[in-house]
């Protein structure tokens, strides 16, 4: 049986990236206020 690979772990990574992206965007929007 092959390990689950991208289909499985990719979803967790994608969720983490989206949260990080949103956070970075938030900081960028408020940078000079």
């Amino acid at each position, binding site marked *: 049986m092959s390990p689950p690979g991208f*289909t499985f772990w990719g979803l967790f990574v994608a*969720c983490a990236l*989206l949260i990080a992206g949103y956070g970075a965007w938030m900081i960028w929007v*408020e940078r000079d206020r």
Partner: protein
Amino acid sequence: MTTQAWVFLGYFLVVFGIGWYSLRATRDETDYWIAGGELGWFTGGATMAATHTSAGTFVGTIGVMYTAGWSFGWVLLSIPLAYWFMVAVLAPRFTRQKELTIPAFIETRYYGKGVRGLAAGIILIATVVYIQAQIVAGGLIANTVFGIPTTWGMVGFTAILLVYTVVGGMVAVVYTDAFQLVVMGLGALFAVPLALRQVDGLGGLLTLVQSAHPLVFTWETMPATLLLTMGLSFFLGGVATPEKLIRLYAMKDMRTIRRGVLFAIVMILGINLLVFVLALCAIVLFPALSTGDLAMPMVATAVLPATLGSIMLAAITAAMMSTVDSLLIVAGSALSVDIYQNLIHPEVSLRRRMWVDRIGILIVGSTPVALLLSGVGEGDLVQFIVLLFTALMAAAFVLPVVGGVLWRRATREGAAAAMIGGVAATFAWEVWGAPTVEPVLCGFLVSAALFVGVSLVTPAPPASALEPYFEARTTSESA
């Protein structure tokens, strides 16, 4: 009394306590419908996440994944994208002028009471049917926990929901939602390690699940068109359903909205990923269930010890109640503010308004259970509309709301055509269209075509309708 019954009793007492506290914090209609528009990021984000997470997450989602495998999980990514779009593009203009209800926004932007009545009518009918299905789920839970007949369970749940929502309005909904989110989070958080222990940990789970369901980690279980259009449905539903939009008015300012939505996204993703892992455990532990919808009840009763199992059932109940209470606010305000006070009896005194508001919620809250008790709408029709609910709301409201604050040329007639056409096309696709494509795609495209087409052939909106949402046209900006 059983452990389960004690856990539920304690849970209901906390909810009532919050309702009682909220009565004292509610002084006027702004408090009652949008919690004074002064929510902070924690309460605002918590109520967003709790409203988003319904019994569908804990029973329906886990059920789909049980049958269809992990690829379905990727649809989840559309949710943070939808919230991000809502905060970055829609909210800055949408919240410039706060209203008490979404149909009230429609009247301000589209300069007409008729189009507001139309929006209120669509919201009212769709939410009442949606609440009906959730109440049926509540009746079944009450039957499992307290051993009382399902009918009594439905009446009981309606009564509990109505007591705190009628009394405390949005303030009660927001604070009970925050508490219910904690219950949901704890339920999912405790259940996962215990379920994993039964399948030899995460490594064991990943091996065992593939022998029980060889296609579980492939993309072959669901057609790509269905995955993509489901994602689109979640995205559009996330952007412009009334129960989410109204929370933008309830939060204090843009800074608060940005933080609140970040919190909501983290909670929604976290709870969903935990529930997804539970679905995999269910595939291994109970490989031959007749329907995926049984997966969660099986995990709650057969895997978890009694106390935790009842916390899990309480979590499902919390998910259900925190969605229904928000829909009660949306439907109640559509009835008493947008239809009664706006169209039928505009001269209601300020003092009597609060009573009208409460009676509105009482009516929309008792209608579903009254219909069920008289045998109307049991079974198929209700399930049919529940599946359609997000698609209907998305097809009816995304264009009038998002287009309304981004496009100056959008007119009253265009918005009305988009709402009617979107709803009709969604229904039509559900009945006659291909089952591998979600009806929202058809509804949204028809709604978009009518919104743009009809707007362009009707007279441009007056300046007074644009003034709250757009800068004055003195600069070189063109829309």
